[in-house]
């Protein structure tokens, strides 16, 4: 699970790659077409005597693609009768476009294999990008049914005019909108209930309770505490949850006057962590004990970072290692080295592939969601506990809906409850 080394550049790279791919594919399309033509030229002449043009495509329509940013038109059709049946000669379809109904239709926008019934002619929103489709500009489309012989194809009636435009709401995301609204409402309700002083029960979590003991242990042994954020940046929610945990830990550390070491992978995480630790020391009334170098940056290369943190572990022999945040392949390296240096280890991550390694190698592991609950547990503030309650109710909703859904999917048709058959589709998210 090597993390891609450069996250920040990727979006541009992808865009570039995409553009390259477009030009490459346009070029190869041209080559393919000319190859068809060459073969055609080389073909023995007797075959031309019995040219059978395939049945043409019917029911051609072109409309603006729904739920998008515009610059896209969807062409739909009913396949030719010779597609997989009849004379069985159709190999694929070619979508042609023109600015005017009289043609010329020389703009091949796409080719799709047999059996296809639609094609989405879309472009990026950048003007000047390859194949850019301006919004509110009329286009006309034609679809050709192709055979193995490039000169033998049948064309359709022309459809159009059609123009593309952007929408203001993506209907495919309605389930997500509902989920977000309901969850926000739940959170607000329980948080305000908690504000009014309603007692909320939370079950104990071993990993959280270990944090306090671990800090005490470090104080007794006179050894430092190592807090690792992993490879997350400040834009990962796991890291943001980890910030809150650090603020609780740092406060205790400041009270007990233990040393805290926080090696960072991301500079913004470092900046935020410095603020947190500084404030915690100030709140504990010991601003002079705060050392800026306690929270320091190492490097943004995965294995160099791991090497450096392992070096710290071996040299400083921390009493406790706390790993909270996003971890990749380095999880096991850190945890195993921590065992060598004889530390108590507490870990929590939302990276599913790495949870098994922490479970195996660490003393306590916060599995997935428990990491996000940890800040509320450590703070014991009613406001934060209120949102835990909201999380639980959301889980209950998921369970009930899933149970209902699986019953509907399996039995609604047999029980002739037609209104239930489509229940599952209510939850479908379409991008």
């Amino acid at each position, binding site marked *: 699970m090597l993390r891609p080394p450069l996250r920040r550049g990727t979006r541009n790279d992808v865009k570039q790659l995409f553009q390259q791919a477009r030009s*490459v*594919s346009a070029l*190869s*399309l041209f*080559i*393919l077409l000319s*190859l*068809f033509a*060459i*073969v055609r030229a*080389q073909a023995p002449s007797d075959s031309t005597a019995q040219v059978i043009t395939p049945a043409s495509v019917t029911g051609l329509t072109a409309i603006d693609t729904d739920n998008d940013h515009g610059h896209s038109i969807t062409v739909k059709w009913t396949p030719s009768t010779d597609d*997989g049946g009849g004379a069985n000669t159709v*190999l*694929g379809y070619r979508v042609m476009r023109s600015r005017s109904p009289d043609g010329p239709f020389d703009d091949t926008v796409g*080719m799709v*294999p*047999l059996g296809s019934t639609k094609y989405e002619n879309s472009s990026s929103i950048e003007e000047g990008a390859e194949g850019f489709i301006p919004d509110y500009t009329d286009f006309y489309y034609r679809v050709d049914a192709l055979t*193995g012989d490039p000169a033998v194809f049948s064309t359709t009636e022309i459809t159009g005019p059609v123009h593309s435009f952007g929408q203001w709401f993506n209907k495919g995301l309605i389930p997500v909108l509902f989920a977000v609204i309901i969850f926000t409402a739940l959170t607000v309700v329980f948080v305000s209930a908690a504000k009014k002083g309603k007692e909320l029960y939370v079950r104990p979590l071993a990993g959280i309770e270990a944090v306090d003991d671990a800090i005490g242990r470090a104080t007794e042994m006179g050894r430092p505490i190592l807090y690792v954020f992993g490879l997350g940046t400040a834009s990962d929610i796991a890291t943001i949850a980890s910030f809150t945990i650090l603020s609780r830990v740092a406060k205790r550390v400041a009270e007990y006057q233990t040393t805290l070491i926080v090696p960072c992978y991301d500079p913004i995480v470092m900046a935020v962590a410095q603020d947190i630790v500084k404030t915690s020391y100030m709140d504990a009334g010991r601003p002079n004990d705060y050392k800026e170098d306690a929270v320091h940056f190492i490097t943004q290369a995965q294995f160099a970072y791991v090497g450096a943190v392992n070096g710290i572990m071996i040299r400083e022999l921390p009493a406790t290692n706390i790993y909270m945040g996003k971890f990749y392949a380095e999880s096991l390296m850190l945890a*195993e080295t921590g065992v*060598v240096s004889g530390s108590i280890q507490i870990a929590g991550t939302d990276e599913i592939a790495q949870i098994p390694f922490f479970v195996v190698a660490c003393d306590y592991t916060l599995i997935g969601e428990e990491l996000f609950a940890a800040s509320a547990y450590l703070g014991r503030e009613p406001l934060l506990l209120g949102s835990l309650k909201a999380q639980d109710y959301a889980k209950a909703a998921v369970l009930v809906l899933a149970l209902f859904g699986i019953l509907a999917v399996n039995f609604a048709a047999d029980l002739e409850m037609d209104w239930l058959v489509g229940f599952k589709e209510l939850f479908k998210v379409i991008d």
Partner: protein
Amino acid sequence: MNLFERFMKLDRRWIYLFLMAVCLLAYYSDFTVPTIQEKETGAIYNFIDSLPAGEVIFVAIDYDPSSQAELHPMTYAIMEHAFRKNLKVVFTALSQNGPGMADQAIHDIADSMRMEQTYNGVTFPEREIVNGVDYCFLGYKPYYALVITAMGQDFRTPFPSDYYGTPLDSLPLMKNVHNYDDISILVDVSSGNITDAWISYGQGKFDFPLALGLTGVMTAQYYPFLQSGQVMGIMGGLLGAAQYEDMADNPGLAKDGMRVQLLAHMVIILFILIGNIGYFAGRKNLKKV
């Protein structure tokens, strides 16, 4: 201090050293790992093995260097088996970086064919495999779905000439080979979704025997096609390749890898067992006290 307790306190560096030594030993040594022979791989081997000399098989090399470690051994095993049986091979590379892979494979196999070898008790003399006579590399074209359907009409439609620029008609091998009807089996060695196109556009429309060579992770997804009969055999990951090499009695890359894998796994399992025995023995001692 009894033996178990000593094991319980074993320093991890001994484990590392032991594992490294075992891996190196396995890599450089020459023993063979017996593999179980699953029927999914056996079906492919038996089919190719039963073909008479001169028949044509088709190998689609649809993977990139990133999955080379798992899939290269399959290509090598099948192609070498085919050449030793005097079968002809036509192959394509429909993934973008596939041609490099195919090129490398054919060079290595040609080298290996220059040596006399004995497989399953039969000695094959050394011979030179010739482009255009023993094999034909069609090359790469984009739009794999279209290419696959077009090849159903004639291989010449998408590939008028081969990868090296020679027109197909001038190649002796391709004289009588026009489309899927003229090949005995198609083996798709793939790491991506091109497999789906071979199943639906290729096998689904033109109905030829289709065998798959897949990466370990993908294998489970394609078992339904095996049950429905669309696919006649599947090789899954390094394990599948090793099984094929075993059946062909031609230990190669996969068996090399398997030796290390097997011994490393054995070492780890052994350590786990020792750890547990030590743990239980220690607990028993505690109870006595």
